[in-house]
């Protein structure tokens, strides 16, 4: 195991830059998740670390080794593909032994290491099966065991759970995380699934359009999102566009005056509010900001109720209310009072 450092990494295809100046440091034994919408450059970043895509610029260091120009077979990165990519002509045991064979481990020493890797993923006894005789979940574990058996310096996972059904995905999440912790594996996982990222990561990297938007723990990303994109991507936010006039004062596009501690006079800006900081009805009494809102649309989602409200001609927001006992969900056309405290919102200057 080793630490991994990515510096100023860039990848361009012609005029199109798909990974732009990415810098990430991953500590020994850390589980880092690259999270972002589809097409934002996560896979390309991971494939540059694995050695399949030559970077246009930048440096990748594993431990003390600069691997930027090394071919994949000299990097010692364990890789698990979304499609598992097992060798269909080899048995489970042969698949898992492949990395050891390539590293010239003596045949007698391979068997116990294969057995150990299969034990770790709970596939003891499946040695002689072929991949086509296994379920998707089992194939996924073989892929993991194959990567683990060669004792990689870093483990790279590209959407490893996206081909599993929902229930299995929950279980495998926990299993992968426990295994990673037990073995102290330095790991990068790529996903576009926010919940998966939040439940598994030590630290997250949020990417958008090839750029890193923010790196931090779940709490940091949720409570102090660095920009509007992160505020909308990690958890949900209600947004109001407007202007930050002066310290403590924000005016919405529709002319609502809002007391807001985060406003510093940035000029054109967006106010972001976490749904749970917005109070409704009698709960809103005594809060610094209180408004009458008209319900435009309400959706019952079980634990939550989504309500689209209009505060003025030009101000709309999406509220997410917990579905408490006896809560009567508002109907379109209803008028409700909503409110939030002065310290509730975050303000992001408009991006040019």
């Amino acid at each position: 195991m080793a630490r991994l450092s990515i510096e100023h990494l860039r990848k361009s295809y012609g005029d199109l830059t798909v990974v732009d100046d990415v810098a990430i440091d991953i500590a020994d034994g850390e589980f880092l998740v690259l999270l972002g919408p589809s097409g934002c450059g996560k896979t390309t970043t991971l494939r540059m670390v694995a050695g399949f895509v030559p970077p246009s610029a930048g440096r990748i260091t594993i431990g003390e080794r600069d691997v930027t120009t090394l071919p994949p077979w000299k990097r010692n990165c364990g890789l698990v593909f979304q499609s598992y990519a097992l060798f269909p002509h080899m048995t489970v045991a042969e698949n898992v032994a492949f990395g050891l064979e390539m590293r010239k481990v003596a045949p007698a020493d391979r068997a116990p290491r294969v057995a150990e890797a299969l034990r770790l993923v709970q596939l003891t006894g499946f040695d002689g099966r072929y991949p086509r005789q296994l379920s998707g979940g089992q194939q996924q574990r073989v892929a993991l065991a194959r990567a683990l058996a060669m004792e990689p310096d870093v483990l790279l996972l590209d959407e490893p759970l996206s081909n599993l059904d929902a229930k299995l995905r929950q279980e495998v999440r926990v299993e992968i995380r426990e295994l990673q912790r037990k073995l102290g594996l330095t790991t990068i996982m790529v996903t576009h699934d926010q919940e998966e990222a939040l439940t598994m990561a030590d630290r997250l990297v949020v990417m958008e359009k090839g750029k890193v938007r923010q790196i931090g723990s779940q709490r940091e990303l949720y409570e102090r999102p660095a920009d509007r994109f992160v505020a909308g991507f990690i958890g949900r936010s209600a947004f109001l566009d407007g202007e930050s006039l002066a310290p403590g004062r924000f005016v919405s596009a529709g002319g609502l005056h809002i007391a807001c501690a985060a406003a510093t006079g940035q000029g054109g800006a967006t106010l972001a509010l976490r749904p749970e900081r917005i109070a409704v009805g009698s709960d809103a009494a005594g809060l610094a900001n209180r408004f009458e809102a008209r319900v435009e649309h309400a959706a019952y989602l079980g634990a939550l109720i989504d309500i689209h409200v209009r505060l003025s001609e030009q101000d709309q927001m999406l509220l997410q209310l917990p579905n408490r006992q006896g809560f009567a969900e508002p109907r379109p056309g209803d008028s409700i009072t909503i409110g939030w405290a002065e310290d509730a919102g975050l303000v992001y200057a408009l991006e040019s």
Partner: protein
Amino acid sequence: MSATAPEAVAGARTGLAGALVVPATIFVAIGLLGPIAILFRYSLNQFIPGQFMVDGLTIENYVKFFTDGYYLNVLVRTVRVAVICTIACLIMGFPLAYVLARMTSPRKNLLIMLVVLPLFVGNAVRAAGWMAAFGSKGALNASLIGLGLIDQPLEIMFTENAVLIGIVAVNLPFMVLTLQSVIEGIPRHVEEAAFSLGAGPMAMFRRVLWPLALPGILAGTILTFILAMNAYATPVLLGGPKFQMMGPLVYGQFAQQNNWPFGGAISFILMTATIVLTVAAHLIVQRRYR
């Protein structure tokens, strides 16, 4: 009642499938097996000059072939040419097929057309082209002599090498297309997995690509081997009158010597040799790889 309804539909489907197989079956039976059976019967007849063919039941035609050094030599040469051509096609065809299979750019279809292009020209026409290019007064020798690089024309025409080059040129597209379609079915990620596990390009090829491409390799080699064993126009036109292979030999017996029984026997020996060698190679490869 309602439970039997789907049965009836399925039954009708299999009936239709059966009906669709009939034309091909009849064609194979009448068009291919029939003539072969007749040929085999002829090969047991006697040939008496002047009398054409006399009904009989003799193996003298086969004895004649296997006791005459000249004919044995033709068989050995044919097998040698076919084996060399097949190996050359495999060695040259695999990298090309791989590149084509892994290509994603729109130029791929253009390249495939280029590979197939030689097949648009018939064997005889192509061989005539080779003669014009490589004959002692052909374009190549004329330019080399004109440039003063050589003073005697190079002997390319009417050698075994000319025949080898000619047959490889014809068979290569078949090998490339067969291999390409099989390699396309091998996911790129599987190769990458091998690389990430520490396999260099050679090890990846040997342990992953080759075994997974094996069905295509077998199909391609069988196809090109059969084509080479039975080559006719290329050996005649590029090999010249003294370079005999089995295909032209059969034709000569039928058309020039009018010796149908012996021609039939040679046909049978050619067919049997092709089948036996193909099956033997198949078995050896299958044993080697599981």
